[in-house]
């Protein structure tokens, strides 16, 4: 039972939250379809000319391609590493378990600027600054807890006896892993992979520190352009990210259901 005055207070705060959360997105998408040369409200009529413009802009296309490469590298690194770590944390009795967990949470507790600067200095010393793959590895490091968390929460529900049963039936260790352990953590792997891909795609600060003019990723490109001038073509580029986010939310809902994030731990 929620009393009516509580309803009024809570719902007005919720409506305000919904407004500030979704208005920027709606405005960006709306502004991208303007036919005028500046962003104004109400928009000057409807056109897709800014989309035609960004489709022809080489720097934006290349930046988008680089963001894709970074995300794929991030995925290639974090999927195996995160999956194995998630399995190890839940299926094996490790000494110093809680210390390990705190250590593996370091990517979240060290400020992003610190992680970014640290890797920048280190990659600089190793002479690999300026290529694209270290950016992907860096994205994998800073978001690693996400995939470890999602794999270990689905590994926790696997019945240990299943693996023993497989071994009893003569399956070797690799066979047991491939046919029992891996399929059972697959939902967690897919969720984690989705998170890692999208977060690497939108990653800004670490990319800003690790890229130069020849290797900028799309979020950094947007940031650089915003600093100079705000034109509707940026709104069109931003809409690309809105589409990516829509697909990601839809996939997440289909795969695990958004409600899973409300469950108490």
């Amino acid at each position, binding site marked *: 039972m*929620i009393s009516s005055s*509580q309803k009024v207070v*809570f*719902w007005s705060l*919720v409506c305000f*939250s919904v407004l*500030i*959360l*979704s*208005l*920027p*997105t709606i*405005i*960006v998408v709306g502004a991208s379809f303007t036919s005028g040369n500046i962003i104004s409200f109400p928009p000057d009529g409807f056109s897709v000319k800014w989309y035609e413009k960004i489709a022809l802009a080489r720097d934006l296309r290349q930046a988008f391609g680089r963001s894709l490469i970074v995300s794929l590298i991030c995925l290639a*690194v974090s999927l195996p590493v995160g999956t*194995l*770590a998630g399995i*190890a944390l839940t299926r*094996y009795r490790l000494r110093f378990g809680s210390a*390990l*967990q*705190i*250590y593996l949470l*370091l*990517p*979240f*507790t*060290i*400020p*992003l*600027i*610190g*992680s970014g*600067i*640290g890797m920048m*200095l*280190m990659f600089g010393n190793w002479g690999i600054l300026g290529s694209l793959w270290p950016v992907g*590895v860096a994205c994998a490091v800073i978001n*690693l807890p996400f995939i*470890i968390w999602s794999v270990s*929460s689905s590994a*926790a529900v696997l019945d240990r006896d299943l693996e023993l049963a497989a071994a009893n039936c003569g399956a*070797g260790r690799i066979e047991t892993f491939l046919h029992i352990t891996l399929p059972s953590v697959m939902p967690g792997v897919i969720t984690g992979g989705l998170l890692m891909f999208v977060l690497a795609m*939108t*990653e800004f*600060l670490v990319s*800003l520190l690790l890229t130069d003019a020849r290797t900028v990723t799309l979020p950094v490109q947007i940031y650089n352009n*915003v600093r100079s001038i705000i034109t509707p073509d*940026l*709104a069109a580029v*931003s809409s690309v990210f809105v589409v990516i*986010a*829509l697909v*990601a939310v839809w996939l997440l*809902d289909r795969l695990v259901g*958004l409600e899973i*994030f*409300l469950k*108490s*731990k």
Partner: protein
Amino acid sequence: MPIKKQDQSFRYPLHWRIMDVLEAALDILWPRRLARLTGWLLILPALLLVGLLVIGLFQIAENSLRTLDRSTFRLSEDYTLQNYTTILNSATYGWVILRSVYAAALTVAFTLLLAFPFSYILVRTPSAMVRKTLLVVLFLPFFIGQVVRAYGLLIILGTNGVINQGFGIVGIEPIRLLFNFPAVVFGEVQYMLPFAVLMLAPALTAIPQEIETAASSLGANWLRSLWHITLPMAKPGIVGAGLVVGTLTLTDFAIPAMLGGGSQDFIANAIYDQFFRTADQGLGAALTMILVALGSVFVGIIVAIFGVGTLGMGGKK
């Protein structure tokens, strides 16, 4: 001899043979008597990957002890604490640090104020449609990314932005809503809201609704049952959410850079400037160490006051 012929032609399926080879190879590479260590083998890549951050921190710490030689523009060879004394004696950095801490405190307060009712309705609403809508509204910005969201706020708050155009219609002169402290705090609240709700909602789910019903049937109005029942029981979630929002705001770069327009720098912006504008890496590294220390102290104080249990809410189970 038909049977023998059949025997000769019979072969195990290919994937059986591949599996046998793999298993045999595994027995040589990682014998079963090492089974005790298998867990460590599996977790090793993750430990190494996170090790990159630890090495990076050491590198920063080392740089922070070396000062910039203005004649050669190289860092000195010998170690001093001079960078730290420069920062501590500088009023500019004092202001930057104070501004970051103040903004983080304000952001925590406003974000929790908005996130609590949001999580409460999200968890308690009987309508599946309302819940799904609120969840989509929450997750969409989370996946859109910080730069694009800040860009959206720029369009809304700008001099020719939505709000000022609205003011124009009612006949109010346009006012400067951007590039000031409130704009940055507003941007941070908008950015942190999804994080806070995702930390709070599980804690609220854990509170049985019957307890609130019992309180109200015993005569408590909703404010009293909120104060005496819901808030105390949700404390781990509230503290966890405050912790995450506080540290993320304290260390943020993009929002102050984009919505503050250079006049509202946080510590992260000052660090960036030291590395990329002034090129004084030693000073920048010292600032980074101070930020890391500040964040750790903040986490430490919260944990000391509210207990270690809150840390478990910090991400992984």
